[in-house]
């Protein structure tokens, strides 16, 4: 996958993209309430992708989760999926969905990190470091050094580390689960009015994630 420039084409929009956040019974799935609005704004701002103006929250214990082939999951607290959530999540991944999990703690030994990675490994498979030249990092904006750092990493919060890689479970050369412990949940959870004060839009990487999910 590579970026390219070509003449503009006036295409008819397909169904609009809907940003979906996964609800789960354990933990705090709604710890970043402003995140979805900021990402929707970013997608609409930089691309011509049709995007629904409102995000949705969908329960992982419901088959309705399968209506959203890209799901965002975050939290601070320990994650233990129920049996039904596990079944839906496995079906979701088997059918081609992409689950993006972000540790809201930015803490390598945090409860969320330990339990979430255990649950992913148990239900889906082991996570592996995603190479920093992966197509994800050039799906729209180009991130030469891999995943963009967050202000929390640079401020030395949490585990005081700059995590160089994201982690992923891949099947058939497609990312099925993307795991971040860079705390994008905090980075993207700003008040919408504050975006104009940011020198570099920190949500640009979300555009790459969505474009990757829609085209791979």
């Amino acid at each position, binding site marked *: 996958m590579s*970026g*390219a420039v070509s003449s503009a084409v006036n*295409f*008819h929009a397909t169904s609009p993209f809907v940003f979906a956040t996964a609800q789960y019974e354990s933990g705090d799935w709604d710890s970043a309430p402003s995140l979805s609005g900021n990402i929707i704004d970013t997608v609409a701002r930089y691309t011509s992708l049709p995007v629904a103006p409102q995000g949705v929250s969908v329960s992982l214990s419901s088959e309705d989760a399968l209506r959203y082939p890209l799901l965002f999951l975050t939290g601070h607290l320990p994650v233990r999926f129920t049996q039904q959530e596990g079944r839906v999540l496995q079906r979701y991944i088997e*059918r*081609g969905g992409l689950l993006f999990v972000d540790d809201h703690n930015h803490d390598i030994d945090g409860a969320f990190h330990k339990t979430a990675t255990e649950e992913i490994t148990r239900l889906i498979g082991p996570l592996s470091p995603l190479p920093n030249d992966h197509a994800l990092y050039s799906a729209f904006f180009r991130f030469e050094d891999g995943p963009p750092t967050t202000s929390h990493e640079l401020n030395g919060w949490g585990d005081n580390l700059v995590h160089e890689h994201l982690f992923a479970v891949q099947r*058939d050369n497609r990312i099925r689960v993307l795991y971040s412990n860079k705390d994008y949940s905090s980075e993207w959870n700003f008040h919408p009015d504050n975006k104009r004060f940011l020198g570099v839009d920190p949500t640009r990487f979300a555009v790459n994630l969505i474009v990757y999910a829609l*085209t791979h």
Partner: protein
Amino acid sequence: MRSPTDTAAADAARVVAEWTARSVAIIALLLAWWSTSRPLPWHSPGHAGSRDGVMTVHDSSGTIDVRAIGDAASNPATRAMHAHLREPPDAERRALLHAALLSGLPVSWRADSATLPAVALAVSALADPTGGTIVRTVAQSGTPLSLSDSVGWLDSATAVRGGVQWNVSGPARAFQVSGARSAATAHPRLGRVRLFAAPGWEARFAMQALEEAGWTVDADFMIAPRVSITAGAPASLDTSRYSAVIAIDSTAWPSGNAIARFVREGGGLVMFGSAASGGALAPMRAGSSASVSPGIPGALRTAMPREGLALRPVTSLATDVVVLERSERPGSPIAMVARRVGLGRVVQVGWEQTWEWRMLGGDDAVESHRDWWRALLQRTAYAPVASGDSLTDRWQPLPGDAAPAADLVARLGPAQAPAELPTTSGPLTPPSPWWFVIAAGALLAEWWSRRLRGAR
């Protein structure tokens, strides 16, 4: 010295003996003449029998004895040949019977239709990257059919609506169905698939399904004005690179002329309703696209999962269109049609957002969605077979092994009873020389007796 009385008695006895000798000679000559009016007797070598010069060969032990055909045909006493069959004879036996007919010998055949199924077989390689063969069998409805290859039995089925179709995985090879035999063409050379679609879940899952089916997909997604993302390595459309184009929406319109040229040259086109509704693709469409009707709630997880998808029915069909699928909804709207354009084939699909089938369908949704996309490409893809790669026989005027019953009819004519032959025709039994020896001996004895008694 014998008395005159004795001499007269002896002469009377001799006269009786002479009449007896004459009678024996006449009877011998009559028997010789009678024997020549009988047909030549024939000794069968086994599965054959003769009656009035009609040699009947039969396959009571499973197949006709080749020697029986040869012996019957070469026997001068054979005036006609009749084959009684339980199974379609193989090519060698059909050729022997045909040769006997061509030599001037009347040849007929008969079989119980229940045991001699009229089966015709067509085998061709699928336009699929993973290989596979499609075996189409035509037979009378209700005929039990069994499919086998050189290794053994593969499947069995009963013919319904005039036939059975099997899709068999694996390399191209020869198949046999109830006596009919045919080989697939060598696997065709396939190119890539060019996808025209706006970025979205339909394009993304179409790519995934096709790639899982073995196709290489090239696409070009417009993400923003003047910015596009490429998948694969899109190149100019021609049949040396691509086997098929998939046009999901109006993003294909700017390339309409190139797509039309590609199809006329033999390429395949799968066109969805949004793509067919206007632009440069309109001349190739099979019909108009009506307004969208929503899917039937809950149907995605039933045995008719596509009914759960939104449908843009195809209406106002062109005259050369073949309807491939109708929806079960009221009015049976047309969901999929096909037509030829130039050397290529176009399939127009009315179903919308098929990705929902894969994500929300039943337990087999991933496989069935993938197989549906695979079948779309099998129907349309440009799949040339290089010359000289054909595994099938060159064209011949007779049906051959692909339809042995039809081949038998083409060679010998329809089934009929053994020929009723006139009794005077055909070779007759030559008279036995012993009849002439007996007649000559009797006449010589009669002559000798008359001479001894002084009579003339």
